[in-house]
């Protein structure tokens, strides 16, 4: 077991910029926080010897031991429920839920305890727990392995919900989430796990609960998060060929939403498309539309449009290309907005 150190200067496993996958970015984030703080522990199904089914926790048990990287019983309510007890005891558990569709057995502990204990105890109990959830589709999987359950948690007061979209954000956001004293649902776009980007540890990250304009533009605004950031950027690139100058905002934080940059943008462009893989009914995308139509009422030249998964269960994999928003559906919505 590597000797844990509290020296923050060794936070980053490597000080030189390196090209890494999202998985590597997450893995290094875990390693860095575990080295810095002996109270950070990782728990979940198969996170130990196997390193998780996506290898996000690869090598951690070997280096930090079985007491800091727990291969848990097959029980999601147990993972969340015991993480709460461990947090009360002073630990900072990072729980892995193996796939999005398997968070529901743990839903009661999340909604009834994780979200409410701080409130119930008038702030006396803190729950610095991160629940990591590989989410979304696009990997050709069987049922329950491609869901986007983030809206359930955004609807739950007491939780914070974030989604990363690229390796660099994945790294920093996970570190920030672990350092946050509130429970954070941390959504990782599994279909982007193997994409690469350069992580330069010398560039300080922006605050966790903030959105970011990832492409400036003037024709219309696209607000999105997680796996759809790349899709939206691709749409913007394709649209540029047709003379569209699209602004793309990566929301990053889904609860609380940081919509100031969206308002600012919509006031300039007059048009907003919200893009998400999740079904739209009673969702985060609806929330954004509701807020923006209120805040930017006089700026909107067309209604806020949403491009989302349909209000059906996730279909068989051969249909997921139809189910999931793609570049064309995003651009079609831009066209509709412009034609309004």
């Amino acid at each position, binding site marked *: 077991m590597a000797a844990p150190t509290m020296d923050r200067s060794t936070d980053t496993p490597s000080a030189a910029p390196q090209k890494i996958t999202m998985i590597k970015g997450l893995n290094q984030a875990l390693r860095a926080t575990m080295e810095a703080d002996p109270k950070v522990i990782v728990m979940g199904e198969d996170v130990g010897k196997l390193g998780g089914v996506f290898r996000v926790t690869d090598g951690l048990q070997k280096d930090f031991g079985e007491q800091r990287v727990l291969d848990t*019983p097959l029980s999601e309510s147990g993972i969340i*429920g015991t993480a709460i*007890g*461990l947090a009360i005891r*002073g630990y900072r558990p990072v729980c892995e839920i193996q796939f999005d569709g398997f968070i529901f057995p743990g839903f*009661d502990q999340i909604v009834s*305890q994780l979200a409410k204990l701080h409130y119930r*105890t008038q*702030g006396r109990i803190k729950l610095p727990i991160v629940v990591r959830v590989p989410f979304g589709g696009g990997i050709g999987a069987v049922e329950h392995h491609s869901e986007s359950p983030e809206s359930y948690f955004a609807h739950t007061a007491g939780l914070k919900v974030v989604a990363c979209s690229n390796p660099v954000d994945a790294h920093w956001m996970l570190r920030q989430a672990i350092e*946050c004293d509130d429970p954070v649902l941390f959504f990782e776009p599994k279909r982007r796990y193997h994409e690469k980007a350069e992580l330069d540890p010398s560039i300080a990250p922006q605050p966790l609960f903030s959105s970011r304009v990832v492409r400036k533009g003037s024709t219309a605004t696209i607000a999105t998060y997680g796996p759809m950031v790349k899709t939206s950027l691709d749409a913007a690139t394709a649209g540029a060929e047709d003379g569209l100058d699209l602004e793309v905002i990566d929301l990053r934080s889904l609860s609380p939403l940081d919509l100031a940059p969206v308002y600012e943008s919509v006031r300039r462009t007059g048009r907003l498309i919200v893009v998400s893989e999740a079904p739209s009914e009673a969702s985060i995308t609806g929330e954004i539309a509701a807020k923006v139509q209120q805040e930017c009422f006089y700026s909107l030249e067309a209604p806020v449009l949403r491009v989302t998964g349909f209000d059906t269960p996730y279909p068989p994999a051969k249909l997921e290309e139809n189910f999931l928003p793609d570049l064309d559906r995003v651009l079609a919505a831009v066209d509709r907005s412009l034609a309004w």
Partner: protein
Amino acid sequence: MSSPERWSQPQPSGAPAATAAQPTAEQVIAGLRATSEGGPELVQLLTPEGERVDHPDFHLDITPEELRGLYRDMVLVRRADREANALQRQGQLGLWVPLLGQEAAQIGAGRALRPTDMAFPSYREHGVAWCRGVHPNEIVGMFRGVDHGAWDPVERRFHPYTIVIGNQCLNAAGYAMGQRFDGKVGDDNGEATMVFFGDGATSQGDVHEAFVWAAVYDAPLVFFCQNNQWAISEPTERQSRLPLYQRARGYGFPGIRVDGNDVLATLAVARWALEECRHGNGPVLIEAFTYRMDSHTTSDDATRYRLSTEVEEWKLKDPIERVKAHLSRNGFADHDFFDGVEAEADELAAVLREHCVNLPEPPPGRMFDNVYAEPSPALRAQQDEYETYLAGFAGGEH
């Protein structure tokens, strides 16, 4: 309780035993809720008549002073309970959840805990709370609707009441795992955790998962199930075929049924179980066989679903009376003592009433406090908007 044995020897497939009869309803009920007997497995050290009896496995050396202390605890918590019940009837509380009849189970368990131990209650553990230094004053707020729980759970090592049945068992398992990870388990100075839940709760998935986790991680956790025979209107046979302490059999840790109306037996068994845990031999399941003498809550009317004869039978097994009889008969306490405790109880009730009716109403802004440890700007904006709105009223704007 021989009926379960029927199942333990599978019959050859050709034999007629495949048509073996179901256990009779009487057999099942005998095992589950003998209204007068807990069965031969019941650990008892003090009979309903107040006589000390021996048990081959569990002994308790106890001084008269300690006995008087237990008596006093039980009388005081019963009195506070009755006062709170009355406060509800008078409209001062929205709800009360009575502990009446479960004083011995709770004081026995609560007094077995050390200050360094941790406890996770359900919602009826006012007696355990008392032992953790949580005054009834600190409990009534949540039933009056001024807070969701007022004590500091970390400082008192007494978790807030948990209402969603079974949830706390997993939280307790995690806490106890932490005690072990911290190296606080393994010798006489070890720490342990006790979690409280009801007979009904045993059906919940979370309780099972807590059994699994505690067993797999050797957590120093005592599962303390108060089988008070009822889950609101449902008797224990709606939850189990077997006596509940036997549930532990399938997980590889001990399960013991104790007379939950016998404070001495409960104390002895709970101490033993905590000792096992602090030395690293946890978890342990205790089923305290007791009875909910009152309705489920003040919103409930138990006469709708259970017989008064059953209640009458259990009255004969009152947990306080038997200690009183024991104290008196052996000359361990005199009139003055009993009068003194009564006076203390009156005083406690008065303090509780006074405190309760004068509890300040929480200010509206409180609603927004402590949703997050690190405030959310979005929520702050909602609060600001609401406070502006309220201010409008104050200014007579609307």
